[in-house]
């Protein structure tokens, strides 16, 4: 486990809607008192800022005026692996989020929720309780199963028995609380499993990209 809880001092928020920007700022400040927040409404400025600075938390929208937030997520995951990356979105389905999670996001916030809920969720991500929607869980489950069957999956990228169970229950719509009751493990352990699933998703997608690049003669 490389990801240990660390203090969030510097946050970067990239969001083009002013209202949402304001909301995310409020949520960020309420969650991490004393945090410094840097706000941008496009990818370019955010990327430029990151060349000089570093952040502990990146809150990013996906559909930005000058591109897809997913690209920046992948860059930050490479340059600052310790940074907690969170997607701010209004859609939690696999079509919109999966690529961002593969790129290295550790969770997501649904912007239509109340400030109190958002604060709780962000805290959860930082405490190791990342959210995972049923549709994404199903897609993950399918993806890992297909790769396991094709045996292109090195052992460290495949899910453990427990992680598969957790993922299966999420896919059935169970909440973290229900899962911890069902599997008789603590809520934190459930969170750890989910974090691991995220991590393995990111590792295996990068490994796949590398293999693909090698195959194409770019490696």
């Amino acid at each position, binding site marked *: 486990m490389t990801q240990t809880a660390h203090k969030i001092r510097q946050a970067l928020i990239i969001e083009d809607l002013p*209202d949402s920007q304001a909301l995310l700022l409020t949520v960020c400040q309420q969650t991490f008192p004393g945090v410094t927040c840097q706000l941008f409404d496009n990818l370019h400025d955010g990327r430029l800022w990151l060349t000089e600075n570093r952040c502990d938390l990146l809150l990013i929208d996906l*559909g930005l005026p000058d591109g897809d937030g997913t690209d920046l997520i992948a860059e930050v995951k490479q340059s600052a692996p310790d940074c907690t990356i969170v997607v701010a979105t*209004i859609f939690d389905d696999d079509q919109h989020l999966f690529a961002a999670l593969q790129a290295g996001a550790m969770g997501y916030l649904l912007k*239509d929720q109340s400030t109190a809920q958002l604060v709780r969720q962000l805290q959860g991500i930082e405490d190791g309780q990342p959210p995972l929607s049923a*549709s994404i869980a199903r897609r993950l489950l399918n993806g890992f199963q297909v790769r396991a069957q094709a045996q292109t999956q090195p052992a460290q990228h495949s899910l453990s028995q427990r992680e598969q169970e957790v993922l299966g229950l999420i*896919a*059935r*719509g169970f909440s973290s609380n229900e899962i911890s009751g069902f599997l008789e493990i603590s809520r934190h352990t459930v969170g750890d499993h989910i974090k691991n699933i995220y991590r393995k998703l990111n590792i295996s997608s990068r490994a796949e990209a590398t293999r693909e690049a090698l195959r194409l003669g770019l490696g």
Partner: protein
Amino acid sequence: MLFNRPSLALHATTLLAIFCCSISIWMALQLPQFDGHWLIKNGTLYLHADADPDTPPTSRPLIPVSVSNRQQQIIPERNDFLEDPDFVDRYQDYNRIIQRQDLWSAFGYAPLVIRATDTNGNPVEWQTHLRPRQLQDLPKEFWLQQVVALLALVISGWVFWLRHNDTSARLFFASSACLMPAILAASVYSTRSWSVPSDWMLWLSHINHIGTEATVAFMLMLFMTYPQRLPVWRYWPGLAVLLAAQAWIEFRQWSDNLELLLRWPVFMEIIAILLLAVWQWRASARNPLQRAALRWFLSSILISITLISWNSMVVNFLGLDAPFSQSDSIALFLILYLGIALGLRRYRLFDMDIWSYRTLLWTAGSGLILLLDYLLLAVMGLSHNLSMGLALFLTGWIYLPLRQWLWNRMVGSPWQPDNNLMPQLSAIAWQPPEQRQQAWQALLQAHFQPLHLHRANGMDADTGSAQLANDGQQLLIASHGELAPVSLEFAQRGARLFNRQDVRFANSLTQLLEQLIHDRRDYQQGIDEERRRIGRDLHDNIGARLLKLLHRLRNTPNEELARDAILDLRSTINAIDSPLQSFADTLADLRIEISGRCEAASVHLTWQVPFELPTDNLKPVVRSVLTSILRELVSNALRHATPTAIVISMPVAPSMSTPLHMEISNNGLHTSPDHWQEGYGLRNLRGRLQELGGSLSVQQPQADQVSIHLTLPATIWAKP
């Protein structure tokens, strides 16, 4: 050539067999018919008189003394009425039987007197006369032998025409082709009622002897090479010369000892066949498949041959009466040929495949229909008192439709270009990819009517074009796109060869199908793209605006309205992205959504739904209605009742045959449901629910509790 058209060849073989049978039937009909029959029992000749109006009709056997008319008188000899003249031990007796036939034939149809004694020694005189033979006079033994002869040639011919390059198939055919004349020849004289002209009997007997010797000789050679070629096979030319010489010696009667010249050689050959069978058996010890086939083949052949030879030869050696007549023993050959025909199917004797049965069935079908035609003519011809009107009615309304039905069922219509090919091809293109191959093969089967059609996976797929193989016996259709290559053998049920035109036609078919599949894919891609575009627009424009609205309405009573609108938009976009979703997944999404909302409102949610839910897809409209209704009901409860607990329950999972029942109940209600004013949302949903055949009812079991029961019929599932 016939080799390339097995169906045609088999028809020709059948016709030949029918022709040969016709000759023997014709010959049998030329013989005189006697209304009594001769019987040899314990070495004594008896006479049984059939019903005769004038003379003492007696069922008691008579002992014949003399037969006479004005010209001649004959003292009957026992051997005159032996079934087969070769049932004696010396050629002297054999020749005498044949010579005396002409004496008997000389009676003609003139009146004659038979003097005899009954078993008590009293003289009996019987005046009778011979008459021309009718078809119905021929005994069942005679017909049985015709059937066996026909079957022998047809079944061996069938094996031969499909496997003509195989030595064992050739030997089997040769053996049966020699058996047929032997049986037919014997059938004429052995079922005679009175006599056969001497020269006929002489030559028929020669045919019978030579045919039998050749049959056994070819069978002997067959066992040298089937199923395994034994080392002794290399001596076959010597063996052939030896056996031919033996047949010549027998024909020329080089000795008076018939037993030595005829029966002993055949007997020895059968012993040799048994020895070879044992040899083959041992040779196949390491090959269980071959052994299973051999077991079947051997039992068929050995049972029939052993019984026949035991009957006609061993019994002769022992000087006992045969337990059944020679004609009856011929029926044992039925065991052989039916056994082999069954074995071909079960054990692939001679390496024949199951499809080869189609040729045989087809021939049998057309033969049966010809027979029906003949029977109709016979019935019409015989029934003089059948009125013209009735005859027309029978033929037109009963017979012809029946014949057509039989023809379609058993023989099928002759090949004709199919005008429905275009719609069929188009239907294939619209089928799911995994079903296309099967539909494609079905189309090729229907169009070319090959005897055998299978995937040709080993074929070189790069040629891209159809090609002929084995001089037109085979048409290979290359793979195209996702379609695997296919091999077709024996066009039009084996009635013709594949030709250049077929190749061109197959090529245009594959190209057309490829084009159709391609167009279909483009079309689907267009749909998918458009769907994605709509989803993106909804997401980018409406989503952003709704979110803006939500931000403006935060901390006002209308905040929830905007949130519900976003939720609905979310499901709409989900539905656009993946129109089909399983029941289990739909409920999982609903559960997450509802539990999130309950958690936000600090309401305790109890979700009582079976752990295993059907993974069958819901119709998109059902999924949308179900999602909207549950969402609306939960919203209403949260907004109006300020509950502390919500229970969503489904006691039994729905299935293809059981309806869906769900109940949403909550506490904290203040007004009675009777006074509810249904908002637009719920009214609208109730209407949509009714359109799907479902219903919704509200109950208030306790003052502070309300439960809403939701029912949907078992028709909610999307077609698989």
